[in-house]
Structures are given as C-alpha cells and as structure tokens.
C-alpha cells in the first residue's frame, strides 16, 4: 500500500466510525440542550440497541446475509423495530430516573444517570454474558472497487461502508427537518431555550422532553444496529467507551448544537482512525482527549457552540 492509499483507507474508516459516533452524539446533545443533563446512560442505550437489533434479527430468523427483496423489506423493518424499542427504553429511563428530579439540583439527575448506566450494563452482562458476542453477517459485504469496478486497488471499500452513509445521512437530514420545520421540533428548541415561557406558549413541556428522549433513543438504536452490522461484534461494556467518545464529540462540536454533534462525531472518528494508524492505537484515547482539551481551551464553547453571553 502506498502512503496515500493508507491515508484514504484510514479516512474512510474514520468517517464510518465517526458516523456512528455522530448518531450517538446527537442523542447526548439533544437531551443536554433540553434538560441540561449529561445523560450517562445514553451510551448504554446504544449498546443495548446493538443487542436488541440482534434479538430482532434472531426473532425474524435472519442469520445469513440478506439478499434481494428481503434486504429491502427486512432490513428497514429491523431498523424500525430496533429504533422503536430503544426509543421506548430511553423514554422509560427518563420517566423513572430523571423526570422526578426536574426541579432538583443539577447533580442529582447526573447521579441517577450514572446509576442507570450501571444497571443497563449489568443487565446486558447478565443477558449476553461477559464474552464478546458474534453479530451475524446479515448485510452482504461486497468489495466495491475490486468486484464492481474491477480496479486493482489496495483500498478496501465495501457495501457496508455505503450502508453506513446511506443510513446515517438520511437520518440526520430527517432530524434536521424535524427540528427546524415541524411543530414538535420547534417546541423542542423553544423548550431548550426557556422552559417556562415555552409552556406559556401552549407547549406541553413534559411531552416535548418525552419526544426528545424518544428521538435520541431511536438514533442510538440505529447506531447500535449499524455498529453491529458493520463490525459484527458486540460486548456489554462497549456502550461506555462509545458513549464517552460520542459525548466528547458532542462537546467538541458545541453541546446543544445538532450540527456540532454531527461534525464532532466525524472529527473524533477521523482523529481516532488516523491516530490508530500513524501513532499507535494504545495512545488514541489520550490523543482524542488532548485534542478535545486544546479545542475547548481556545474555543470554550466548542466548534459550533453558541456563545452564551455572560451579561452583568
């Protein structure tokens, strides 16, 4: 492989990784925007999304690569089912662990979020066991450059990479439309900016928060499904690492900003892929966080975050 092939390959890897981070980061940033909570349990919802999608595939009897009409019917169906399940789970978490603390100090729901995170991880451990779980290769993997175009290149691009793009980009566009154009999206933004006044506009604030958790959970579920199909492996503790990276992405982009979360996810994905390649995988975590710290020191509100003017 030549140096530029390595670079292109790692960039592709980074972008696919980043797309998953971005989907998770959106959930963090939306919840933070609306109730100012670092939802520690969100990474675990993503992890459960992976296992839940696996359960749906098993239930539907899919264990081998899907083809033809099955691909265009069953795959969207599993996407839908998984997203609905994790969305419901996320809503339930909010109802049980965060909603009673809405008027409490900010640290209290943070601690319950940590508690829920521990519970979800432990539940996954008991459900799936401590060993890594093989995720069946349900999506047909074809090397695009060699098999479709007949190119003899060392770069490895498969239909799975295409799947990641084809799944995340429409989801993000849909989210953008939802937030800027629809009633509930506007309600979400209004509630994030001033809850009591939003209420006085006739917005049902609790239902808006519910919608936020629903959407965030659905995105995390989609991310889990994509992760499973792409890497074919899942483990009970993976939500913690992914959640940490995704949250970092949300902060890097400017927490509360949707565009920032998407951008942050891609940046973190690229950085970690490049660092794995050019420095050493064992230093990647340190490097990702060092860059995060540098960005925040020079741009304290993240890449796209809005500066909250401190008025006297």
């Amino acid at each position, binding site marked *: 492989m030549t140096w530029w092939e390595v670079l292109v390959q790692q960039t592709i890897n980074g972008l696919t990784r980043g797309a998953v981070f971005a989907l998770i980061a959106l959930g963090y940033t939306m919840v*933070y925007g609306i109730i*100012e909570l*670092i939802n520690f349990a969100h990474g675990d919802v993503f992890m459960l999304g992976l296992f839940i999608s696996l359960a749906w595939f098993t239930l539907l009897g899919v264990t081998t690569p899907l083809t033809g009409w099955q691909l265009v019917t069953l795959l969207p169906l599993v996407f839908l089912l998984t997203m609905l399940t994790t969305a419901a789970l996320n809503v339930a978490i909010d109802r*049980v*662990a965060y909603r*009673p*603390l809405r*008027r*409490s*100090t900010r*640290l*209290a*729901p*943070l*601690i*319950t979020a*940590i*508690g*829920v*995170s*521990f*519970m*979800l*991880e*432990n*539940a996954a*451990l*008991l459900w799936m066991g401590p060993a890594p779980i093989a995720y069946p290769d349900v999506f047909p993997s074809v090397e695009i450059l060699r098999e479709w175009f007949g190119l003899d290149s060392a770069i490895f691009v498969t239909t799975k990479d295409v799947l990641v793009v084809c799944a995340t980009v429409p989801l993000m566009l849909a989210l953008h439309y939802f937030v800027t154009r629809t009633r509930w999206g506007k309600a979400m933004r209004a509630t994030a900016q001033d809850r*009591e006044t939003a209420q006085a506009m006739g917005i049902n604030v609790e239902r808006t928060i519910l919608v936020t958790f629903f959407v965030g959970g659905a995105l995390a579920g989609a991310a889990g499904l994509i992760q499973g199909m792409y890497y074919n492996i899942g483990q009970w503790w993976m939500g*913690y690492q992914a959640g*940490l990276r995704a*949250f*970092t992405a949300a*902060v890097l982009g400017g*927490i509360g900003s949707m565009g920032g979360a998407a951008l942050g996810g891609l940046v973190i994905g690229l950085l970690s892929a490049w660092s794995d390649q050019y420095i*050493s995988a*064992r*230093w990647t*975590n*340190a490097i990702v*966080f*060092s860059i*995060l*710290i540098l960005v*925040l*020191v020079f741009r*304290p*509100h*993240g890449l796209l975050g809005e500066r909250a003017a*401190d*008025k*006297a």
Partner: protein
Amino acid sequence: MGRAALVVGLLLYPFVDRAVGLQTVHAVSDGMIYVLLALGLNIVVGYAGLLDLGYAAFFAIGAYTMGLLNSPVLGSPLYGHPWSFWLCIWVAAAVSALLGLAIDAPTLRVRGDYLAIITLGFGEIIPVAIRNLGDITVEIGGWRPIERLNLTGGENGVNPVGRPYLPGVPFETDPVPWYFLILVIGAASLWAMNRLRDSRLGRAWMAIREDETAADCTGVNPVSTKLLAFALGASFSGFAGSIYAAKLQAITPGAFEFQVSIMLLCMVVLGGAGSLKGVVLGGMLITVFDRIVLSQSTFLVRWVGRTAGVQALASSDLTLWRWFFFGLGLVLVMLLRPQGLAGSRVSPVAAGADETDDPIVSEPSPSPRVEAVPGWLRERMAPGVAAPEAAPLLDVRGVTKRFGGVVALNEVDLVVPPGAIIGLIGPNGAGKTTFFNVVTGLTRPDGGRITFEGASLVGLRPNAIVARGIARTFQSIRLFPYMTVLENVLVGEHCRLAATVVGAVLRPPSVRAEESRARERGRALLAFVGLGGKEDDIARNLPYGDQRRLEIARALATEPRLLLLDEPTAGMNPRETEILTDLIGLLRRELSLSVLLIEHDMQVVMRISDRITVLDYGTRIAEATPAEIQRHPRVIEAYLGTGYEQELAARSSPR
C-alpha cells in the same frame, strides 16, 4: 456526648471486629481511603462547584508517586533508591497538587460542564499514559534514542511498594495498624477542612460556586481561588493515593479508571455535596455496600434458597449483580433524597424567588440614620476626605467598545469628581451597563483611557479593580443566593482580609482577630442598611427590597471610594425608593463616597445627581446639571419624551 461515643466506637471497632470474627477491617480501611479521596473531591465539587469527572487521575498520581519513589520499577532511572514512606506521602501530596495546578490551569476559561468534560479527558489520559510509559521506544529513522524504557511499570504496575516504618508498629498484612494510620490522617483532614470551610477561603470558593461574575466583581480572584481548590483537592488525593499504594503493596493502572472518578463523585453527591458529614457518610455507605453487604448477602440468599428448597436462589451469586444493585441504589437514594443523605433541604427552585411573603410594604423600614454609619467604615474612608484638589476620582476618556459590528460605546467621556453623585441615563441599549462593565473590568474596551485616582484601570481584572476601590451592584440582583446574609457581606470584605491556607487551618491569634473583626464589621454594616437581625437568613429568601440593600452592603464591605449602582431602585415602590435615595445621599455626605448611578426613575436621578450624562446609541449626547438636562432638546427627543414635562407637573402639583 455523641462525639465521645463516636471516638470510642472508632477506636474500639477493629478489636470488636477481631473478637467477633467479622474480618471487615480491611474493607473499612480501604473505604476510609476512598472517603479521604471524596473529601478532596468535595473541595472541588461541593465547595467550589466545579464538576470534576476525572478526579481519579490525581489518585493515580499520588499512588504512582509513592510507588515509584518507594519501590522503583526495574529498569527505571529511580531504581534502587527507595525513600521513606513518611517523606513520600508529602512528596505525593505536593506532586499531586502541582499537577493539579498544571492540569487545571488551562481549564480556567472554561465553564460549567465543559470543565467537567476536560477533567474527564485528563482522567482518561492519565491511565493511558501510565500504561504506555511502561515501555517507551522512540524510533526516528532507524535511530533509537530511547529503547524499551520503563518508567511506570506499564500494565503490570508497581510491585512491591515499600511499607511505612514506625518502631514497634507492624505495617504488615494485619489491617489494624493501617486502620489507625488512616483514621489519624482522615481525622486530621476533616479537622483542617472544617476550618477551611469557615474561613475567608471557604467563603471565596462558595462565592465562585454561586456566581463567578458577581464574586469577581466583589473582589474574589476567580483564577487563584479555583486553582487553590484544584491544588488542595488534588493534594488530598495525593495523600490518599500514596497510602493506598503502600497498603495494597502494589498498584496497577486499572485501579484509576473513569469508574473510580464516578464512584467518588457518587460518594460526594450521595452524601450531600458540600457537607463534610455527608461525604463521610456517603463514602462509607458505598464502600460498605460494595465490599461487605453484597458478598455477605450472597451467603444469605443461598442459605434462604437451600432451606426453602429454591434451586435458583441456592446457586445464585449476587456479586454478579453488583453493579446493578449499585446503580439501583444510586437511583433510589437520589429519587428519595435529591439533596443527598446529609444535605440540607433547600426549597425547590421555583423561578419566582422574587415573590416572598414578607410584608415589606406594611412595615416601612426606617430611613438610614447618620449615627448608624459604621465607625470602622468612617475610619477606613476618612483619608478620602483629604482630597481637596479637584483631580477627578474616575476619569474616562474616549472609551469605545464594539460588539461585532455594533458600536456599544463610541468615544464616551465621563468624569467623577471625589464625593460627587453622577447620573447616567439613556434609552435601553444605549450602552449604560456596557459602560459599567468596561469600568469594572468585565469587558475590555477597544479604545480609550480609564484612570482611577491617577492610575489606569484598562486591562485589570474585575477583582483587581475592586481592590483599587470601585464597587458595583447589578441591574438584576446578583447575590450569592445560598449563602447567608452575613456571609455575603463577608465575601465583600474578602479583598481586605489576608488569611492564607495555613492561617485558615491553624488559626493563629492574628487570623482569629481578623476574622472576628470582619464579622463585627459585617454586622455593623448590615445594621446600617437596615438588615440587622437577618444575618443568618439565606440570601435568596430575603424579600426583594432587602436583597437590593444587601447587594449595596456587600459592595460597601469592599471599602470602595467609588460606588457604581445599576438601577438600584428598579422594582421598588416609592417609599423604598425614597429610603434608598436617602441612603445614597448619606453615604456621600458622611463618607464622601462617590457614586455613579444608572437609573430610570427620573425623580431619583434629578434629585440626587450633581451632574448627569446621557447616552444614546453608545454616544454621549449631553452632560450637564439635572436642571439643564430636563430642558435639553436632544435628551427630550431621545429619552424623556414630550410627555415627561406634563408628568413632572402632575407629580409636583399635589405637593
């Protein structure tokens, strides 16, 4: 009584444990190490209000300092020179404190949850670095200047770590000496922290926690105050880390992961952030639950299962459910007691804090009296009277400030002579508050000169400007809402007090005297503004008018030569307004205090101002005496309106 029983209980506990055969001393001693850590974290999170999600990093630094000094790993440059434990714990504390400073210094610009994520980042970086520094090879084009250098022991950690040596006390596998060692250190830490909290420094931390900008404008230096919190917090974990390393005899990087930071945070919040008793309680509870209850209850459940013949129970292993129960416990405790186990119940935050039931209308407080002016304030301000030359106190020339494309202040001139009351009026958005912010250092001007008593103020931080003698109040009241009335005033005195960390802990006679003098002065000041008897009320529970007066008292406590008041009568009824106007006049007459006043109530401005400056769109459009301003055509057009004259007439006719 209770305290004596507690001491006896703590002293007897290990022997009782041994007699009964519980074998819990190990776990309890480990728990006490975590409590010590949590106490350090409490300084950062509970007192200074800085959310730290990577505190285990300092724990690691302390432990590795001890480990590397006392038992250098093979191949490291330090190999073969073990140091004494008793020296190492101090070195570890110092190293942790220094690294605390170094790591957190870049975070000072960052606020709130961004700070949290940076600390989280460091918490991730440190274990990674420790792992990887066990095997360093640097290769530059085939040349290897460093090959397989082992600094930290890598994944294997450091093993063994030297034990403390004390004649006659065996620090071996028997946990009892360890228990007492940790008990002594823990008790000393608690004692020191208790004293810190009730000192000038503790108040500064809390002020930063409540409102950083207001604290800065009250003379508290946020940079040094926060750094001190970080350094002290880190030094405690240096202690804890080094004892941990010595007790365990071995350390590995896995012991300092994110989960440890989270566990420590849980201890602090579970107990009730800010409360020492709560932190100890929360810490012990979590450890005891984790190390003792879970393992013991497995036996219990199995026994129940066997006797009842339920196979599922008999073969169960609750330790598998460890994190599930831990998480469930956290959720339940927080849902049932959101303020923490020992936290004081602060009434739920309703946005309507301004609406209380105190009968401020039916009980008009008396006008301030000349005799009530605190003697000390008179003394401290007295030198100011001896300024007969007409040199202005505050001299602002050509100050300009732009926000993006908008010119908020355009070449504004303003002069405050000593002992004068100057009004600053103008339509909304004219730049009045921006002008205040520029003078008090919150906003840096883009151009122009600001001199106070002949020295330039440009570029100084707000707290340095307070120290020079300028105090201010805010348009929307900015008190330290969860501190008491007296504490609010004491924060005002912060920059006139001198106690250091050592002084605050050891309390030599000079510090004691300073502290009691400060309290006396604070009480006198509160009595003067009409808040006598409310010293121990929580500031946010005061009625609105009292809050305004408290803010003025806090500003006066900084011993200012110039007082900036931003709409002091906003939201007051005419009676309260009158009292406040009298107060301002009294301050000027008795203390020759100069006042710069933003005010929309024209009656007030016209009555007490010597001269008035009018701003419109950032530009000074008039500067004259009140009588001239009322007839000034541009002022009428831009600000007063034509109806104003009729209103003046309407108001004066019934008199």
